[in-house]
Structure formats: C-alpha cells, structure tokens
C-alpha cells in the first residue's frame, strides 16, 4: 500500500483564490524589485563613466567635470550620527519613563503620543527646526565651539574660541542643527522598540532584584537594561536607517555644500538625499543617472543598516514569543 496522499484537492474557487493571491504577491515583488534594479541600471551609466573616482570625488558636477559621493556620503553619515547620539539619550529616557516610571493610568496615552510623534510629517519638523530651533541652538553651538573647539569635530573654521564678534550666521544651517531635528524624528521609532522590550522584562527577575534590596534604578540596571540591550541597539539602528534617508527636514535646514565638512557646528553641510531633492530639476539625463548612483549608494547603506537592525531586534526577543 502506498502512502495516503495528504495534499488537499482544492476546489475551483480556492484555486482561483490562490492564483489571485500569488498574483498580488508577484506584482508587489516585481514592483519593488523593479525599483531596485532600475536604480541600479540607470546608475550604471554614471558609475561606468566615473569609475572609482565616484567614491573619492567631493564635487558634484556631473555635466562637466567630476562628481562623487565622498563629501555627501560623509555629510549624510555625520547628520545621522549626530541624530542617533541625541536620539539614543532621548529614546532611552522616554522608553524607560513609559515602561518603568509613568503611572499606569497614563501609560496608554503616552504610547499613543509617541506614535503620534512618529506620524508628524517631516516638513513640520523641518519648519520648526528652521524657524524656531535654529536661532536658539546658535548660542549652544557657540558655547560648544568656545570650550570644546580644540576637538576637531567642534571647530569652526576662521573663528577663534571666545570670539564674540562673528555673526550668528556662522553657526546656522549646520550639520549639528539638522542632526538635532532628525534626532526628534527618529526618537519615537527607537523609543517604541525599546519600550516594548523593556516592558517584556520578566516580572520574576524584577521582583527578585527588589527582594534582594535593589532600588528602582538598581533593578533597571541589573534586569531591564540587560534584557533590552538587543532592542536598544536594534531600535537605534532602525532610527539610523531612517536618519540616513531623511530628506525634507534636512533640506530645510542645511545649506548644501560639496566638500567634506567634518566641522559639525559650521555653516553648511551635505547630504545625499538633499542633493537628489535639490538637483533633479535642472538635471540632464546623465546627471539623473549620477543622482541615481548616489541614491543607490544611500539605499545600499540604509539597507545594510536596516537588515542588521532587524536581525538584532528579532534575536533580542528572547523566549518562545519570538516569531519573526
């Protein structure tokens, strides 16, 4: 006797249903793959012409002379790093507050508010950053420059420390200010992932820590933070991925320059996405190809960051509840 076949014999309607489902999946797959491959092929033209100089050139002048991502890539990464540094503090504070300190009654409300913060359009953040935050941060920038100017990162070219003469515009439109605004935009993303992990810290271990005489902070340090470490890193990296691709808020703040700008407090910065948003309009087909190449580099970077983040987050969910 042969084994009994367990395969279901589908009815006609079910077969049609599966075909439709499969079709939907394939269309989505095709669309997204098309975006990726199209970017790749259109970028190829520019990459082919520029060769390795694409990685080392700072200038962006595709129609005559050199173009490369050396400056804009470093600018993008610097903005994202400033954002992640600030967001790390803010997100951790918010996540700890909501999961550990906030009264139970307002917890749901706070979670909703954090979600709302993630849904605020980037143009609104950009407006606030450019019109409200910028001029108030200038004094902070100046203070950082005065006292920490000996660190190359905080130097501002052409201005000596404690020089009160220069106008505020030397400190506006900087990488630092753009980073601060982007930090606000990625805080809710990182924070909600951290909070979820913190609130899943096992109650038995919490109570054990309290029973051994720990204060609340002692309990958090010995139970909650080690439990949520993976989610903290993963959440921040997801935020990093978002920060690298942020366009409009950054475009409203920095003034775009095409040279490596390691001084984050200084006027002017650079970013790949802002370059695309500001340069596409007057671009020739070849220049569009160059923009595509820059976009491809950016996409590659965000993709790597997001994949690492996803792996870390899914690993960190210890125990049987993890599914993804």
């Amino acid at each position, binding site marked *: 006797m042969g084994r009994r076949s367990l395969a279901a014999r589908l009815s006609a309607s079910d077969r049609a249903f599966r075909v439709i489902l499969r079709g939907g999946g394939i269309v989505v797959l095709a669309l997204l793959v098309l975006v990726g491959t199209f970017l790749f092929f259109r970028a190829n033209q520019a990459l082919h012409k520029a060769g390795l100089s694409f990685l080392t050139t700072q200038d962006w002048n595709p129609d005559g002379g050199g173009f490369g991502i050396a400056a804009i890539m470093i600018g993008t990464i610097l903005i994202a790093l400033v954002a992640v540094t600030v967001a790390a503090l803010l997100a951790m*504070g918010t996540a700890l507050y909501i999961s550990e*300190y906030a009264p139970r009654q307002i917890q749901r409300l706070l979670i909703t508010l954090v979600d709302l913060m993630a849904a605020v359009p980037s143009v609104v953040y950009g407006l606030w950053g450019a019109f409200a935050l910028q001029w108030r941060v200038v004094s902070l920038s100046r203070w950082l420059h005065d006292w920490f100017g000996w660190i190359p990162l905080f130097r501002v070219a052409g201005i000596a420390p404690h020089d009160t003469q220069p106008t505020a515009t030397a400190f506006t439109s900087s990488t630092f200010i753009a980073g601060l605004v982007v930090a606000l935009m990625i805080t809710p993303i990182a924070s909600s992932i951290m909070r979820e992990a913190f609130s899943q810290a096992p109650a038995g271990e919490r109570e054990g820590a309290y029973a051994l005489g720990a204060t609340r902070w002692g309990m958090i340090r010995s139970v909650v933070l080690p439990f949520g470490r993976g989610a903290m890193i993963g959440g921040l990296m997801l935020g990093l991925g978002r920060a690298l691709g942020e366009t409009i808020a950054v475009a409203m703040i920095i003034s775009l320059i095409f040279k490596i700008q390691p001084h984050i407090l200084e006027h002017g910065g650079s970013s790949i996405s802002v370059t695309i948003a500001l340069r596409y309009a007057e671009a020739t087909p070849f220049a569009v190809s160059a923009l595509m190449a820059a976009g491809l580099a950016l996409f590659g970077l965000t993709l790597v960051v997001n994949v690492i983040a996803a792996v870390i987050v899914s690993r960190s969910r210890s125990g049987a509840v993890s599914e993804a």
Partner: protein
Amino acid sequence: MTVLNEPLQPAAQPGASGETTAPAAQTVLPRSITEAAPGPRRPRSRRRLTGFRTADVLALIGAAAAALAITALLWTQFAPFTGILGYVIVSWGLFVLVYGILVSFDENRPTIRDRIAAALVHSLAFVVGGSLALVIIYTVVKGWTAMVHLNFYTQDMHTTGPTAPLTHGGVLHAVVGSLIELAIAMAIAVPLGLLAAVFLNEVPGRLGRLVRTVVDAMTALPDVLAGLFIYATLILILGLEQSGLAAGCALAVTIISIVCRAAYVVLRLVPGGLTEASYALGSGHWRTVWHVTLPTARSGLATAVILGAARAVGETSPVLLTAGATNYLNDNPVHGPMMSLPLLAYTLVATPQKNYIARGFGAAALLMILVVVMFVLMRAVGGRGAGVLSAGQLRRRLAASQRDLARYTERATARAATGAAGPVPRDAPSRWLLPGNWLPGRRS
C-alpha cells in the same frame, strides 16, 4: 500590617498548639486581633509603599529653586552667557547636582543614584514630550494668522502676489491636490499591499519568503528614491508630465511596503484555532480567509491602512520630484502640475515674504491637523487585538445569534407540526446545522 503578622503566631508558640487536641500540623487561627498581638501593640495604620514623602518633595523644590537662582546669578552678574536654551541647560545641570547633594544628606549611596537616575529619566522624557508639544504648538500658532481667514480654505494662490494681504489667497489647491494624490496612492497601495499581506500569511513557500524579504528590504528605501524612480520612469522615459498621477504613484511606491508589513503583522496574530475551526467545518481556503481571517483582523487592517495614509499625506520628497508645483487649482490628476499641502508649505516658507511664510505655516498646521485626525481615527477603529470586538460589534453579533436561534426554533417547530405529512426537503444544505437534526428520534 496585622494581616502579615497573624500567620507568624502559631510558629512563634509551638507549644500552644500541642496542648490543644488539634493535630500538630493544623494552623491555629487567633480568635481576634488583640489575641494575635501579645507584645506592645504597634500602630495599626497601613504602611504606605508608594507616593512621596515630604522630604523628597522639599528636596526637589529646593534643588530647583537653587539651580534657577544660581543660573540667574550667572546670567545677570557674570555676563558672557545669553540665550534661553543655555539657561535651561545650565540650570538643569545645576539642578541635578544640587538635588544629588540634598539627597545625600539623609540617604545612602544606592538611593542617591536611584534618585538621580529618576530625575534624569523624567527630564529626558519631559524633553521629548515638550519638543512634541512645541513642534505642534509652534506650527499652529505661526499658521494661525493665516488660518483665521475663511479665504484660506476657499481660494487658491494664482492671483495672490508676494505682498498680498492674508485676506487674499489660500490653500484650496493644495488641499484638493493632497486628497487626489492620497486617493491615487491608496487606490494602488492598499489593494496590492493587503493582497500581498494575505499572500504572505496564507500561501507559505519559497515565493512567500522571497516576497517577505523584499518587502522588508524596501521599507529601508529612502522616500526621495521612490520619487526619483517615478521621475526617471514615468516622466523621463514614458513621457508623462509632472502631475498628480505621477505623485500618487510615487507615494504608492513609498507606502506599499509599509501597508503590506503592518497588515502582515496583524494577520499573523489571528488565532489559529479560528481558522482551523473553519476548515474543520468544511469551508475552503477562500471562504475561510474571507469570512474568518479578514473579519477577525479587521481592526488591525484598518490601522495598517490609516498608517499608510498618514504617511502618504505627509510625505514631501516623493511629491517634490513628481508633482511639479502650481498656484492654480488643478483637479485633473493626469494633466498639469498639482500642489499638495506639504509641498506648498515647503515652497512657501523658502520665500522671504512674510505673508507667504504665514501661509506656509498655515498649510503645515492644516496638514498636522489632518494627520492628527487620521491618528484619532486609527485609535478609534484600531488598537484592538485580533478578534476582540468593540461594544457595538459585540451587540450586533449577539443579536445575530439570537435571530439565528429564533429562526432555527421556528423551523424546527414548523417541521414538528407538519412532520408526519412529508419528508424533510433535501435541497437545503443548511439543514445539518438545524438543532432539530441532532435531536434523538428525528425523522430521516
């Protein structure tokens, strides 16, 4: 407190239980509270485990006052500092320092650390909440001067010059454009995203895994690249003009992976028991998905859709590359450039004109309000787990069950009355569900 003391009583006096005739293992309960506490009676007030002590509150107030005063001294007397932000930061640092010192007067070191950590966490959370409030309030306040005029909502900008007063011109063209682009984006992204999510959930296999990986990867796509893609394909290659349709497509590319992922997460939460019960009752795949899986996850699916909509309506960069910009009201998505709210805000505030900037803030505030409304809607319809019914749904479901029951009984009675006359009609497939069929001694 007395409750805690009572069980200790028998253990403290083992002899007492031996003298009575009760077995040794039996717990002897004290007959009254006075009997339970033989020693000097402690006060019977309950010990408070939460809340503030006066000293804590005083330390907080004292530290805050000291910090503010010292900073004020620094700012007014020792001069070189200016700016409100610096004032806040310095006084906050001083506050933490003074608070630590005050607590150290009557607490040990772990407690000091605990208090300082609590102060830090609270202030960080406050900074985030404060920033959110500031962002929203600032936008609305700055936009208010433009938003109070009725023409802001009923006119477009095509006759509005740079110096025209705020009583002239408005954002109608951007509102209409935003809604049209949103509709196009949703019309493309929602069916495809939901279909793909159902596919991921229902048809496991290699293709499903591939789709899932690609969808996950595409959530990392920077939104400006979605715009660039549409710009390079539809506009440069296929020759479509910059229009609402192109913008809608760009937005669809941006949100399709978001909708698909959010929907997939919700569908995965549908309890397996429900679908298995449906299969066990003999329904096919399609019926199970349509009548069990999707209705169970309805609230979460609505959340996924609104999440995508909130994202799409606020996106600027894909629209910037694909929609063009215009001051005219254009309700034709396939012809001519189209304005949308975020794009209008972005372009208006880039000008030096005061009234343009005010209108730009007005547009941003309107957009913000739109997003908040969507968000409230999302909370209202969503936020419940799979299969958890709202009060209204529960009521309707119960009423439907009552109706079914009434119908069954009615039929059963009718059949019992005419039972002897003829056989049960065999053509009704639902007869197997009638309670009468399961009764012993039914007619065949």
